[in-house]
């Protein structure tokens, strides 16, 4: 079983991101489970959401303490929240930041910094980065297929909103794939 923890602030769509990843994983023939850290849905407050992936039915119900993957939607969280806590060696941390930032990640963790805010502003016109980061996650982790993610986004966001969110995710996907 692999586990993902998403760190964000209330209003940035971390819970929606977790749900979309779980839906995309399901469409990729993987057992998945997504849930939020409950009850802290205040705008701007630090929030967490979790996703599990497995080849068999998922029974575990606790929160995620030793993630394989971490997504950090807002780099200002790093100084306030132990975002890398418990990360497994060989894990991947994806951070939204406009510049290279000075901090250390745990040993053996691969760090991916992406300016998702810039991509979101260009394509969506608003600084909501969750769907962009999903594209980066798909590319970096391989847990979800891009077409499954696009399908999940298309079902969640109707009309032009779906088109632009898919484009934002794909832009980040291609960027990370290209960097590999």
């Amino acid at each position: 079983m692999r586990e993902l923890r998403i760190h964000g602030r209330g209003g940035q769509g971390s819970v929606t991101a977790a749900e979309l990843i779980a839906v995309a994983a399901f469409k990729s023939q993987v057992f998945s489970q997504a849930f939020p850290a409950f009850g802290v849905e205040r705008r701007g407050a630090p929030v967490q959401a979790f996703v599990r992936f497995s080849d068999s039915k998922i029974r575990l119900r606790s929160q995620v303490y030793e993630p394989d993957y971490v997504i950090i939607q807002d780099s200002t969280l790093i100084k306030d929240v132990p975002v890398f806590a418990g990360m497994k060696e060989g894990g991947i941390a994806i951070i939204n930041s406009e510049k290279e930032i000075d901090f250390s990640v745990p040993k053996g963790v691969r760090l991916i910094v992406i300016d998702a805010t810039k991509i979101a502003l260009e394509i969506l016109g608003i600084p909501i980065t969750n769907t962009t980061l999903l594209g980066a996650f798909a590319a970096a982790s391989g847990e979800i297929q891009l077409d499954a993610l696009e399908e999940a986004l298309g079902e969640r966001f109707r009309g032009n909103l779906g088109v632009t969110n898919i484009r934002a995710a794909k832009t980040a996907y291609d960027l990370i794939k290209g960097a590999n």
Partner: protein
Amino acid sequence: MLQIMEGSHAVAEAVKLCRPDVIAAYPITPQTHIVERLADMVADGELDSEYICVESEFSALSACLGASAAGSRVYSATSSQGLLLMAEVCFNVAGMRQPVVMSIANRAVGAPLSIWNDQQDSISLRDAGWFQWYAEDAQEISDFHFLAYKVAEDNNVLLPGFICFDGFILSHTYEPVDIPDQESVSAFLPPYHPVIQLDATDPMTMGMYATPDYYMEFRYEIDKAMTQSAIALRKAGSEFKEHFGRDYGELIEEYRLSDADFAFVALGSVCGTIKDAVDEMRKDGKKVGLLKIRSYRPFPAEEIKKALSGIPLVAIIEKNLSIGSRMKGAVGLEVKDAINDSGVCVYSYIIGLGGRDIRKLHIRGVYEEAMKGNGDTFYGLREELL
């Protein structure tokens, strides 16, 4: 069809397939997503039900009681303080033998205010005359609704029931769930045909007062009906398997118990975490297993005694507190009574109250405490706060 959706939406889909005539509910966290979705379904014409908006949970269940007495299949859902506000009506619904089905997204009870999960709310209504089933995952939640109407409306039962599932932990989690089609559900669950119903052309009264000459017999009959509900559930559970492939013929589920010398006992979603912990502990050579109780009311004492036979040490994982009782947990008292063997150690552990996360390492910790002979206690208290 296997789909992925939020637990609350799986409830709403299941309720829709049961085709209730009347829905009355008042929103409360973490139940809200269920009734929001049902209200949408009614407004969008997907579900042909009367959705009654009310100003409180007391009114919600009162409306359900009246509609049920008039012969309708009815539905409600609530949590925590909402359920406690319904408490008086709960006793009336059971006393008038109305087969109301209600989903309980289990939540702690204030004060202090907590929106998070434990099972104090429904356990507190243990003696209200409603059957109480506890689901481990979204699949059980969904399936239990079909079974609940079938059992509640059985002429040998005619009692209301709670479908209990852990708030947030199940209600707000996305996971795969198989939602059957309408044709299959209708074949399993035919329309409700009440034996007695209110009729304006032939007036009668339900729930009138009973003098000391009559009252006790009503109570006796309710208890008898609850016992009958166990039989009806086994029958419906077997029939369900024929229709849908999933087996609910037993009121308990045994997990790796047959050769165990240590048993955990629990209700609800924590059973999943315990199963994973049991698998890990087995790898370390510990012969542990789990007894999951699906039905808390009726309480399957005989089955529990049989399933735990020969196991010398039993630990009940409790998300409730029976304040002032020796064992502290309401479930443990009855498990101990069911086993009724002074040679067996049965301990309750109060854990996870008010949403405190329960991890596999806590399950191992409970095992260690039980092996040391420490039981009937809280587990995981923050001593620095006391």
